């Protein structure tokens, strides 16, 4: 990890805790195995539940006979759609203040008369033992009648196609118009066209979906679950027809989210079974179940038509996007918006038209995945930048330099970049970190280098009216409690709050305890999605800690007889800045405050910028609070006889505004690069005619340690982020540029482009064949 301060560019003050690679508060438990995940919890009298899933991608259900299962020894409950109160779950985003739900976005909890994808839930069995619950599929008879199906967006859009989602399979459309792309295209010297395709991929977290539900002594349905969103308690309440205050969602430390635990997973299955049986019910998806039946990343087909001048300046862009939303809507409209809005990447393009469409099929449903559409967009726009360079016979880095957006430039939606835009700096540093150009050591080997720049929003859509709350309080012994309903999905979300509070109140990290991820007992902090927790809950915690500090400092300034702004806090002590001999232990100050009834705690709400919805005609308007920018560079070796690709070097440079904990930031960057490598080279949920051909980790390949080179991480700090201390989000951005950087490096090596991810050896060899045919 290299960390570069830029004294000329950002004058950031030296701090005591912020900016230090402190060991994370959750590290020891994870290293020793002491950490409890949702699936580790057991309760007396607990039942085990399994879901019976559809064997067909598209069928009518003629009959479900559960009589054999109901009488089977050890089976306590069998639930089908007939037993459900509401029977549908909203798939819209929780906490959105716009109460008008999109039509038709709800999914059934259990299918009643029709299944729309293979693996759709049909029945729940709760049993005394897991082995008995697993026999559900032997004991429940389902008669199916195959129903016409569609398996690609193109088929699904044909007139007369079987309808998966009413009325016409179109799940969402966004049309963005900025300037006049048609007219400007005529002024271009060269028009470059390219089509780029991405695949279904799986989140492949270590911890599959898991939870345990019970009805507590007050009649509250309580669900301990692995989730990115404890605020699903509202949609759980709606689906089960319970008051919102009768559903309590408790999270746990999450063994990886990546967007896969953003939607509801097991909550309703175990919630229903607990309500029915009045006993605790536990469910853990098998890996195969997770691969088959939880959401995937949207495959996109993205077509670029870019008009450029001979000198390399982009004058117009027309981009079409087609995404496969699978059998249910879930977050597709928003994923599509992220993609559409970043269609041309971090470049100044004054004339843009984007037409984006998400279409329902009988494939596994698709929803959130780290990068959330903007990653798919980057796969396309960064390959297109290299193709533009090739057409113009220019260095791809030069074409980027000519077109990089600057502070004040706008997205296709007309939203201005308000903070620093260090695209060129990031690209240069990442590229330089690859080192000297090297030559291959065998005639059949080719070495290539590739770069990708990106922009990725952090914080949620600004018309969702996003807020987060945190409570910070001092105990009598000078230790600190933070209460904030943040789900920690492994990115150090809770640690960040501790580190901020340590800085503000001058208390070491080990004296701070964080309570998070509880919908009833911790102040609601919103979702751990959209790269928002450091920004949102970090600010809420920062505000709360500052409020506590203000009260304490005022009282301390009386006691130490100095001005308020002379008071400082460090090492459990309050002191006068220029004369540290004038001090008092923090505990003494707390005791004084307690004796005088002064508040030693604060609950604070942080509010993101709120905007109106986009102009329906051209989608103009602000969408996100801010963006993170950066670049990824890679060096690859390609075997031109076999198509095998090895990534030899990886270097990433991101402007994170301010690295609150540089070790945690580097961890995100390294992990994002590794996940992006998998996206580029091997990960592929192959769904053919609605059937998943990669049902386990024997077929669905993610990179191993042997596939992943060291990623040199270069952290820049412009100090212009909207998070505490000028920080920007890095969770999703870390992944976004890796796949296109690898695609560009492979194209650089072999002189031809594979436009479909993943770049399997066979596809790479086909691309090489095409050049050889051209020359022969």
């Amino acid at each position, binding site marked *: 990890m290299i960390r570069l301060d830029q004294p000329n560019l950002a004058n950031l003050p030296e701090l005591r805790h912020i900016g230090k690679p402190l060991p994370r508060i959750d590290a020891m438990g994870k290293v020793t195995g002491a950490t409890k995940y949702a699936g580790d919890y057991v309760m007396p009298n607990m039942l085990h539940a399994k879901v019976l899933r559809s064997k067909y991608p598209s069928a009518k259900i003629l009959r479900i006979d559960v009589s054999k299962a109901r009488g089977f020894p050890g089976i306590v409950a069998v639930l089908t759609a007939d037993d459900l109160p509401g029977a549908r779950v909203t798939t819209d985003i929780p906490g959105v203040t716009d109460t008008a739900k999109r039509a038709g976005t709800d999914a059934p909890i259990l299918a009643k008369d029709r299944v729309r994808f293979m693996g759709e839930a049909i029945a729940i069995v709760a049993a005394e033992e897991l082995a008995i619950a697993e026999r559900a599929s032997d004991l429940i008879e389902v008669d199916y009648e195959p129903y016409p199906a569609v398996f690609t967006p193109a088929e699904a859009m044909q007139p007369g196609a079987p309808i998966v989602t009413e009325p016409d399979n179109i799940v969402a459309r966004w049309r963005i118009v900025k300037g006049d792309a048609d007219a400007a295209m005529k002024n271009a010297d060269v028009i470059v066209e390219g089509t780029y395709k991405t695949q279904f991929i799986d989140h492949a977290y270590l911890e599959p979906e898991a939870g345990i539900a019970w009805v507590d002594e007050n009649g509250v349905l309580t669900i301990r679950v692995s989730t990115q969103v404890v605020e699903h308690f509202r949609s759980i309440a709606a689906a089960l027809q319970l008051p919102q205050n009768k559903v309590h969602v408790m999270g746990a430390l999450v063994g990886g989210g990546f967007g896969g635990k953003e939607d509801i997973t097991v909550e309703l299955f175990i919630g229903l079974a607990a309500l029915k049986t009045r006993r605790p019910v536990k469910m853990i998806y098998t890996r195969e179940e997770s691969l088959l039946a939880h959401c995937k990343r949207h495959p996109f087909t993205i077509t670029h038509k870019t008009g450029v001048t001979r000198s390399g300046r982009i004058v117009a862009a027309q981009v079409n996007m087609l995404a496969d939303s699978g059998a249910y809507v879930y977050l597709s409209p928003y994923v599509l918006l992220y993609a559409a809005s970043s269609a041309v990447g971090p470049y100044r393009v004054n004339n843009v038209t984007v037409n984006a469409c998400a279409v329902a099929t009988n494939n596994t449903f698709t929803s959130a995945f780290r990068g959330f559409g903007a990653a798919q967009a980057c796969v396309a726009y960064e390959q297109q930048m290299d193709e533009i360079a090739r057409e113009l016979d220019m260095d791809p880095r030069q074409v980027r330099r000519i077109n990089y957006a600057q502070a004040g430039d706008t997205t296709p939606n007309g939203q201005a970049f308000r903070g620093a835009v260090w695209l060129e700096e990031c690209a240069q540093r990442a590229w330089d970190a690859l080192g000297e150009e090297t030559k291959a050591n065998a005639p059949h080997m080719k070495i290539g280098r590739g770069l990708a720049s990106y922009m990725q929003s952090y914080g949620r859509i600004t018309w969702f009216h996003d807020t987060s709350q945190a409570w910070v309080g001092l105990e009598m012994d000078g230790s600190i409690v933070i209460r904030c309903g943040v789900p920690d999905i492994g990115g150090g979300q809770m640690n960040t709050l501790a580190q901020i509070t340590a800085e503000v109140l001058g208390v070491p990290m080990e004296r701070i305890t964080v309570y998070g991820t509880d919908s009833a007992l911790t102040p609601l902090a919103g979702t751990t999605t959209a790269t928002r927790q450091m920004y949102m809950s970090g600010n809420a915690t920062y505000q709360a800690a500052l409020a506590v500090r203000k009260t304490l400092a005022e009282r301390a300034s009386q006691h130490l007889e100095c001005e308020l702004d002379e008071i400082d806090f460090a090492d459990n002590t309050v002191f006068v800045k220029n004369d540290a001999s004038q001090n008092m232990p923090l505990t003494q100050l707390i005791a004084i405050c307690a004796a005088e009834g002064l508040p030693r705690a604060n609950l604070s709400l942080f509010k993101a910028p709120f905007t109106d919805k986009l102009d329906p005609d051209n989608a103009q308007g602000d969408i996100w609070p801010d963006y993170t920018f950066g670049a990824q560079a890679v060096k690859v070796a390609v075997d031109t006889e076999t198509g095998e690709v090895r990534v030899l070097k990886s270097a990433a440079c991101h402007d994170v505004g301010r690295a609150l904990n540089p070790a945690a930031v580097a961890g995100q960057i390294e992990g994002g690069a590794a996940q992006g490598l998998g996206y580029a080279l*091997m990960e592929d949920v192959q769904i053919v005619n609605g059937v998943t051909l990669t049902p386990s980790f024997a*077929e669905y390949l993610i990179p*191993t340690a042997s596939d992943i080179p060291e990623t040199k991480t270069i952290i820049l700090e412009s100090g212009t982020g909207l998070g505490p201390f000028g920080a920007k989000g890095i969770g999703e951005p870390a992944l976004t540029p890796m796949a296109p950087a690898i695609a560009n490096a492979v194209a650089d090596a072999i002189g031809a482009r594979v436009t479909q991810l993943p770049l*399997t050896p066979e596809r790479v060899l086909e691309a090489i064949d095409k050049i050889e045919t051209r020359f022969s």
Partner: protein
Amino acid sequence: MRDFELLQPKNLADALDALAQNNASVHPLAGGTDMLVDIRAQRAQPDVLVALQNVNELRGVTRTNGHLRVGASTTIAEFLKNPLLTEHDALRQAASVFANPLIRNSATIAGNIGSASPAGDMLPPLLAFDAQIELVSKNGTRTMPLNEFFLGPRKTARNANELISNLQLPISNLQTASAFYKLGLRQADAISLVSVAVWLQRDSDMIRDVRIALGAVAPRPMRATRAEEILHGQIFNETNVKEAARVASEECAPIDDLRASANYRRRMVNVYVRRMLEQAWRNF
């Protein structure tokens, strides 16, 4: 997961007694790295598993009378440690890319053979070394060329009452060399798209003897005998090597599957037979 009975005999005689019921649902269990996965996925449904980890008679690697005798329970990890094994390049190279270190510590050579996957990583090098397989039952022992043991995908010549007891490799270090490559979709823990093992015996510029074995490109691991014939007794040169590689790619019978097309596999046989012949020759 279906229930099964687990027997843990302490010696070979007890193990053979357990298998003597001659019932197809009684199955030996070695490292378990295939069997337990298959049971969980309901691909295998044995009633009784006879675990072999306590049967000392199946252990050990010895070298006598020009033969290397490899006990059935030899783990894949031992092929990376035991000097009697590591001196054989193709075996060592196959072991080094076999699954992952955890699996290698548990999986045994007999288990890999008994599973009889066409893509079993250790099988091409064993064929290239012309291994003989010894089978033992209460009725006695029999030995056959390993090449005749594989009947098809997951089908072998082992009778239900038999155990694989050991392998015997004729070893002549005189002017021999070997090489192995596995092409997978990632660097570890991948199922082969194609694997190639070659063994050469040299006589100055001549190839005195040669064996070429292929994995994952036919219903069973196979010897490319027509390709071998092209090289047998011939000069080692580019023309001969290329021709042998081409013929090997013709005599294999790969399929299209989710990992690669048959055409691609055929082409890779061509590339890697050539490369492995060249690599083995360079090792002299």
